[in-house]
């Protein structure tokens, strides 16, 4: 509850600070202070009770330790995001405070998605999460690409919401309740599965796949990620995606018992396979790093979906590690990318010579995304695939595919490393559009160190799951 309430209030505070504070820097500081407070608040909630005790809300929102931990991860990632990309947010447009406010609202939506107990809350959470994103995507009002991306995102997002609602209603029609636990209990006795319920579940699956941009429902993702202002792409591809995946797990875990048969795993395995293949293979052919990351984020979603495939403790642990390392790495790369002149691979040429610190951090991020050991990304992928293997080891083809896709991903991720370290800079144009501050590389290295820390000792995260 801390996450939801405080982030919503922070959003309001940011909105109003935009009215009274004219200096963008100050606004950024306020936002950073708020997010730090927010992440502390979520951390405090980990061990203890929430600050806001609302027993009536139990039927709607029920926070588990797991949800709290993911909340902490999201807020920490956002904190780093604000710190690293604050200056870039200021460059997007005039309404800086509003951008921050919208991001806080997104976090509130994420908080709801982490703890929803009722399908109504799922719907609300998804909408609170996505509607601000439509605006953020179109934040550059004069930029046609941004406009277009935002329109596409909006149409597709609203469409998938419609699908989701239909699914919810059909389930309600069959089960007579929106409460996940009630549905789950009723579903146990309802064999064979009710037709409307099945249809509803399928629609929900499709719409959730849409939200996490799993193939074949991914087609909006590259365009939207590409068109959106780079800073916001970073936010969308990380925090939002992790929250959506967790919601995905929460929705189908436990409450959809009759569906947990082999049929479910067939469906999800196809989903995962498509996602991995589409994401990785298309990413190979991209010239723009931003677009490459967009496609790669599709494939990363594919790995996270293993948790939905498996529904076991491994999957959940994996999501925490995967979520944090993936978010941090992507935020880090994007924070550099959004400062750069040229966002093709050539733009990275010779970066290591001029900015060794940044290049080192970027290397760690890229290694983490590619899933090389010693980074959090490796353990994340490892956990996800182990989760799949532990739940049903007869899907060997899927695990082999997943790991081979990781190998393919090395190809395109390493192009960044190659450009940074092994290629010389040809043009005289500076790497960055704006001069980077002295603190920036240090912050990046801190983030990189965090990723390595998770990669070496994930217990620091996982211990919170088992009190």
């Amino acid at each position, binding site marked *: 509850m801390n996450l939801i309430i405080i982030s919503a209030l922070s959003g309001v505070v940011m909105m109003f600070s935009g009215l009274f504070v004219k200096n963008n820097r100050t606004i950024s500081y306020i936002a950073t202070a708020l997010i730090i407070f927010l992440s502390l608040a979520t951390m405090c909630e980990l061990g203890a009770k929430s600050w806001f005790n609302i027993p009536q809300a139990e039927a709607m929102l029920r926070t588990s330790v797991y949800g709290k931990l993911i909340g902490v991860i999201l807020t920490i990632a956002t904190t780093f995001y604000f710190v690293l990309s604050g200056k870039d947010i200021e460059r997007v447009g005039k309404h800086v405070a509003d951008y921050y406010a919208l991001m806080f609202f997104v976090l509130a939506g994420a908080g709801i998605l982490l703890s929803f107990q009722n399908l109504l809350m799922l719907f609300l959470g998804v909408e609170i999460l996505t509607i601000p994103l439509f605006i953020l995507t179109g934040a550059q009002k004069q930029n046609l690409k941004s406009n277009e991306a935002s329109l596409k995102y909006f149409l597709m997002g609203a469409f998938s919401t419609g699908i989701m609602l239909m699914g919810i209603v059909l389930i309600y029609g069959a089960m007579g309740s929106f409460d996940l636990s009630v549905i789950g209990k009723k579903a146990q006795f309802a064999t064979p599965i009710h037709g409307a319920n099945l249809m509803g579940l399928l629609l929900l699956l499709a719409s959730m796949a849409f939200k996490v941009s799993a193939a074949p429902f991914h087609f909006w993702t590259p365009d939207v990620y590409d068109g959106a202002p780079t800073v916001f792409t970073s936010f969308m591809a990380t925090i939002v995606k992790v929250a959506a995946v967790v919601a995905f797990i929460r929705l189908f875990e436990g409450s959809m018992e009759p569906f947990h048969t082999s049929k479910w795993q067939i469906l999800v395995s196809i989903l995962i396979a498509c996602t991995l293949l589409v994401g990785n293979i298309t990413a190979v052919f991209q010239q723009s790093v931003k677009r490459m990351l967009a496609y790669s984020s599709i494939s990363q979603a594919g790995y996270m979906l293993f948790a939905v495939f498996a529904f076991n*403790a*491994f999957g959940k*642990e994996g999501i925490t590690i995967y979520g944090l390392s993936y978010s941090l790495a992507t935020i880090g790369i994007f924070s550099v990318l959004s400062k750069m002149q040229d966002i093709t691979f050539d733009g990275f040429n010779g970066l290591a010579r001029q900015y060794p610190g940044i290049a080192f951090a970027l290397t760690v991020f890229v*290694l983490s995304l590619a899933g*090389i*050991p*010693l980074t959090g990304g*490796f*353990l994340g992928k*490892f*956990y996800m*695939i*182990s989760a799949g*293997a*532990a739940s049903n*080891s007869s899907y*060997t083809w899927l*695990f*082999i595919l997943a*790991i*081979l896709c*990781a*190998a393919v991903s*090395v*190809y395109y991720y*390493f192009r960044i490393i*190659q450009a940074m*370290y*092994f*290629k010389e800079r040809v043009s005289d144009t500076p790497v960055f559009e704006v001069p980077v501050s002295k603190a920036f590389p240090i912050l990046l290295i801190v983030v990189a160190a965090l990723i390595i820390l998770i990669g070496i*000792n*994930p*217990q620091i995260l*996982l211990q919170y*799951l*088992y009190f």
Partner: protein
Amino acid sequence: MFLVLLIVIPLIAGIVAIASQSAAIAKIVGLVASLATLGVLLNVLCIPNGSEALAYSKLWIGSLGANFSLLLDGPGKIATLLTAVSFPIIFIASWNNGYKYGHQFWGLMLLAMAGLMGVFLANDMLLFYFFWELALIPTYFLCSIWGGEKRIQVSFKFFIYTFVGSVLMLIGIISLYGKTPDASFSWKSFTQVALTAKEQLFYFWLFFVAFAIKMPIFPLHTWQPDAYEQSPTTVTMVLSGIMVKMGLFAVIRWLFPIFPEASSQMAGIVITLSIIGVIYASLIAIRQDDIKRLIAYSSIAHIGIMAAALFTKNNMGYEGAVIQMFSHGINIIGLWIVVDYIEHQTGVRKMSELGGLAQKAPNLTILFIVLAFANVSLPLTNAFIGEFLMFNGIFQYSVCAAVVACLSIILGAVYTLGLAQKTFYGEPKSLAAIKSDAPLNVIVALSLIVVMIIAFGVYPKPLFNLIGLVTGAN
């Protein structure tokens, strides 16, 4: 605790070296750290095999059942000794090689050393995989940044090859992990996995391909000559001297115990492939004009024999292969040192453009000839012991294979002596004239190697002691 030091010293030294921002400091740090590691290791080696002190374990990722557990056994002792001995020698030999961004170069070398040490020590599958990759990544950077003209493509090829290999291994690890009785990554639980014969075959290949790429064994070797050629020679020393031994070591440590039946069943195929590789590589080596490529192919040939000997699964072959791991490691490092010196002095690597170096550099020539003898495994050199045992082993397994494999000795003599002759004797070529004899650091490094060659060639007992009696160990 000493085992942890073996990994931690180079690791920290590597980070310090990179952070120092100065090539000179980094070099000194590197040398000191590698010597310190050697010192610690020598201390450890005095402990008899199987002692409690040779193991270390600490809970790492509890929920996965992964431990930070290290173990030093017989082959591990040889391998770690090779690593610990080689690095100081490499540092000394490359002392004068000025590298751009030197601190990064030396730092990455130390990181690679840490990774190698980890691979040889790890007693936990996940940990092993971690170090396996940790050794790879610094090497990739070393090759790509400081390599030759085609370095980017070549080192990427190298990386993709080995990465695909390790990824296959990862698949195997994950699925085997699911089958372990106590959901743990420890060596012990992996060896206790109950597998049907068919499953064993499947997983065997998953692991074996990874190791075979690293060694490399015949059809998977194509990355190797390119990588050796394009890498800076200092890195090539690590690659060919130590890193290829990772594959052999992994076969001994992991493959055999986990898949005993499958490895016996597949031995025929592996040995055939290895011996084809041996002959093939030797023949190609003869045709080479580039010194680096020549030595690269010769390395493939040697490794092939070691792999074949390992898979015979008899004591003789096994002991020979383990001894040869050490011998071949230091021998080939010696050869690379010479090549490195020649290349730096003349800027040429083609034998057709070289010649008559003996006139200007007599000391170097003498040392090189000893190395060349060792490379063709003449008696009294350390390589002879290993080769003799290995051929014995192969002979016991299959006479035919042994006969074919023995051809490699003859072929080896042809190309090695050809190399010596074309490079050091004959008329000096005006294009590639050498100025003077080798400098002190090269001489020192080579002398150390030569001393070891002869010492172990005459008195190999310490090495055998290290391995311990391994009858029936596998």
